[in-house]
């Protein structure tokens, strides 16, 4: 059936080329039927890509090793879940997933926004089709998942690092984020091309952008959890180029989500928002390029391939085209209003935008510098964690401070007196927290102490905002406090969902500072009966044991754990030897304490005779990072939840326009 899969991809490519060319002609020359035909071609391409995906999934499920892709990424003993996840474990499958998600989201956005942005859509279709054509070309000519061979007796198996439950979810979530950023990009560029630079493209893509941003954020955290458990060095984020590749578009999209509110409320920052949308999309392409090209050495990069130059060419084209379009339409994007005061909500958003973008650019430079150095000077250099950590502190702390200050400042202008009144309680809470932490010895990490003080300020500001808002809502007639609270959130989901997301970022900050500034670590070689003590935990080596799993031989060191005279059970770090893959992986043991938020993290580096060489790490507050993921998800859902009142308002507004359109 590989031939059918290949045929489906060729059909998809043909349809996409048609949609791009016919769609552009229809948009330029104003041909209605041709525009409809191009839209149908986009829908047809989604169908053909879905067929190709089903063919590949079928081959994976059947372990049909006549498919080269299946033979290279699965084996007979690989469990079914990981076998199906091999769909996105290799380059060809990943590209197919990119195309499938892009067309799924693109077609949905086109069909669901038909009424809202009908005069922009003729341009959206060829832009989406143009992006999709690039991936279809790669899949048909460069990296097809439907190459065939004489079936070997067994497959090569799946990289052991990828045999982790978090890897089942991480790539699809990441791609939903990356690909989702195509939607606001396509609508923004279409609005520029069609000269419809009013608010409609923003309204039409608001939820798509939020969803893409939320998926990307969750994907980064799921990937961090995978790295924490599977890569096993005791940290959660290593400033690896591929990790950074996902963080950069997320930071730029975060900046956009804030600055677009300024455009909606004040009609400012139109050019800036167009640049941010194009930048977020360009960075998402760059992220895919970094992950898939193998150009940089990364723990997340599992491929060395020839698609790099194609990607670079396409990224250059996207940057050039969007820059040209923004410059061409610059007169339409001029703001008609100005910043009224440097002490206002919009000014706070502007400052946070500058810090977020500056942070993204410094990360980009850190990622690009080794590539440029090697290309220009022939010298291989590595940009290490200290570089990134310096800028994370330099830009991150002001961003956190602004996260607390922003919600407390009024739109337009705020007098210093009113601001002082608003800031009083959160500032007092922050100072008390800082003083208490200092007295407890947290001064050993000055950046950590400042970070915790700022975190307390933000959390207090959020609580203060919810309390003030609920009180105001109660004063306007809500019968009970709970009703006042739900009414408050329900009437402005974006704002209060945003505050919940801020709380998630603060939790993440607390966890990150805990693991980065206050963790304890010790290495030890133990024979049975010997013990090692780290940060109050005593581990006693009980002995080694071996067992056979479905597709690997497992070697484990059994360790009894005790803290404060209390036995906490046993943990078993070790190694797995995978049969088909002929690779060995470290399997760390983690004992989480939900109440303290800390982890006991043990790596069995080596087994030599009866001796085991251990690295024992105690990571305080690390579980707040994972809790932050759940809170982030909750906040994102609040912001994304449909608001019936707003829907009605928009429906009324556009119904008015429809009448006017026909009459005009």
């Amino acid at each position, binding site marked *: 059936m590989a031939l059918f899969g290949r045929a489906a991809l060729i059909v998809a490519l043909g349809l996409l080329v048609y949609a791009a060319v016919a769609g552009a002609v229809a948009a330029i020359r104003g041909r209605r039927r041709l525009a409809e035909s191009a839209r149908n071609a986009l829908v047809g391409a989604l169908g053909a890509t879905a067929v190709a995906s089903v063919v590949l999934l079928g081959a994976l499920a059947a372990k049909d090793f006549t498919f080269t892709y299946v033979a290279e990424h699965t084996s007979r003993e690989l469990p079914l879940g990981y076998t199906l996840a091999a769909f996105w474990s290799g380059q060809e499958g990943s590209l197919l997933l990119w195309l499938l998600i892009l067309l799924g989201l693109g077609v949905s956005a086109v069909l669901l926004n038909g009424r809202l942005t*009908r005069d922009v859509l003729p341009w959206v279709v060829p832009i989406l089709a143009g992006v999709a054509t690039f991936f279809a070309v790669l899949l048909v000519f460069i990296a097809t998942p439907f190459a065939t061979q004489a079936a070997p007796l067994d497959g090569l198996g799946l990289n052991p690092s990828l045999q982790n439950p978090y890897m089942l979810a991480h790539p699809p979530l990441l791609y939903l984020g990356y690909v989702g950023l195509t939607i606001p990009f396509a609508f923004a560029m279409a609005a520029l091309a069609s000269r419809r630079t009013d608010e409609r493209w923003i309204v039409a893509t608001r939820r798509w952008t939020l969803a893409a941003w939320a998926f990307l954020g969750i994907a980064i955290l799921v990937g961090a959890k995978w790295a924490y458990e599977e890569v096993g060095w005791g940290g959660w984020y290593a400033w690896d180029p591929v990790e950074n590749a996902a963080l950069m578009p997320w930071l730029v999209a975060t900046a956009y989500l804030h600055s677009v509110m300024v455009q909606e409320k004040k009609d400012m920052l139109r050019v800036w928002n167009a640049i941010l949308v194009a930048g977020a999309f360009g960075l998402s392409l760059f992220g895919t390029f970094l992950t898939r090209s193998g150009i940089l050495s990364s723990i997340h990069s599992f491929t060395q391939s020839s698609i790099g130059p194609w990607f670079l060419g396409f990224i250059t084209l996207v940057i050039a085209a969007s820059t040209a379009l923004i410059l061409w339409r610059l007169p339409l994007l001029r703001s008609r209003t100005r910043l009224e005061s440097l002490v206002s909500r919009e000014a706070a958003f502007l400052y946070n935008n500058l810090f977020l973008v500056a942070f993204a650019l410094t990360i980009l430079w850190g990622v690009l510098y080794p590539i440029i150095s090697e290309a220009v000077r022939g010298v291989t250099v590595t940009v290490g964690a200290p570089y990134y950590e310096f800028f994370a502190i330099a830009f991150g702390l002001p961003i956190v401070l602004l996260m607390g200050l922003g919600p407390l400042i009024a739109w337009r202008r705020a007098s210093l007196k009113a601001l002082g009144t608003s800031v009083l309680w959160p500032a007092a809470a922050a100072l008390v927290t800082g003083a208490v932490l200092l007295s407890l010895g947290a001064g050993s990490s000055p950046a950590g102490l400042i970070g915790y003080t700022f975190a307390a300020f933000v959390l207090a500001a959020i609580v203060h905002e919810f309390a003030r808002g609920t009180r105001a809502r109660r004063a306007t007639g809500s019968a009970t406090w709970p009703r006042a609270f739900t009414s408050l959130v329900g009437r402005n989901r974006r704002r209060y969902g945003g505050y919940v997301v801020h709380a998630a970022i603060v939790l993440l900050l607390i966890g990150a500072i805990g693991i980065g500034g206050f963790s304890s670590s010790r290495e030890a070689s133990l024979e049975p009966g010997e013990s090692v003590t780290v940060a109050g935990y005593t581990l006693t080596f009980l002995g080694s044991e071996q067992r056979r799993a479905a597709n690997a031989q497992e070697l484990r060191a059994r360790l009894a754990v005790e803290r404060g005279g209390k036995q906490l059970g046993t943990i078993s770090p070790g190694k797995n030897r995978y049969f088909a893959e002929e690779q060995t992986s470290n399997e760390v043991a983690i004992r989480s304490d939900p109440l303290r938020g800390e982890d006991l993290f043990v790596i069995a580096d080596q087994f030599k005779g009866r001796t085991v060489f251990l690295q024992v790490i105690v990571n305080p507050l690390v579980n707040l990072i994972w809790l932050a993921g759940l809170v982030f998800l909750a906040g994102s859902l609040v912001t994304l939840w449909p608001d019936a009142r707003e829907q009605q308002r928009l429906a009324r507004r556009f119904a008015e326009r429809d009448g006017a359109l*026909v009459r005009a």
Partner: protein
Amino acid sequence: MIEGLALALGAALAVLCVVLVARPFLREPQTPNDRLREPSPAERQRVSLEEERDRALAALKELEFDHRTGKVSDADYREALGPLRRRAADALSRLDGMMRAQMSTPPEEPRVPEPWPPPDEGDLPDPGPTPAPGEPAPGPDLPGPPQHPPMPQTGGPQTL
């Protein structure tokens, strides 16, 4: 055998897609109006005014809420209220004036001369209630929702 089946399936998929792509032309082999709707300058202005109106009304609401929650002092509130109300009222009256002017001018050549969707594809949309010309414009200090009469429709909206 399997190869033949795969080819047949591929060909069937291609034919299906061709039919889908050609559908707009098969459905309407000849049509007097094959133009995409182009927004008129008047409509562009209307969109701009509606955005300005919504922005001004939202700013008033926001100011009110910020005042109630203590983010804006009484003095700042009083100072900001006047200009915001004037801005809202100005947007409302300009929008209203524009709609009145449009309603008083009968459409000589409608921009969408044929009904859409075509009659064989479904019923025409409800043309809506008859407009009520001469409805009073909102007062200059009225920050409430605008009350515009619905416009008459000569045909359903053209959709892509």
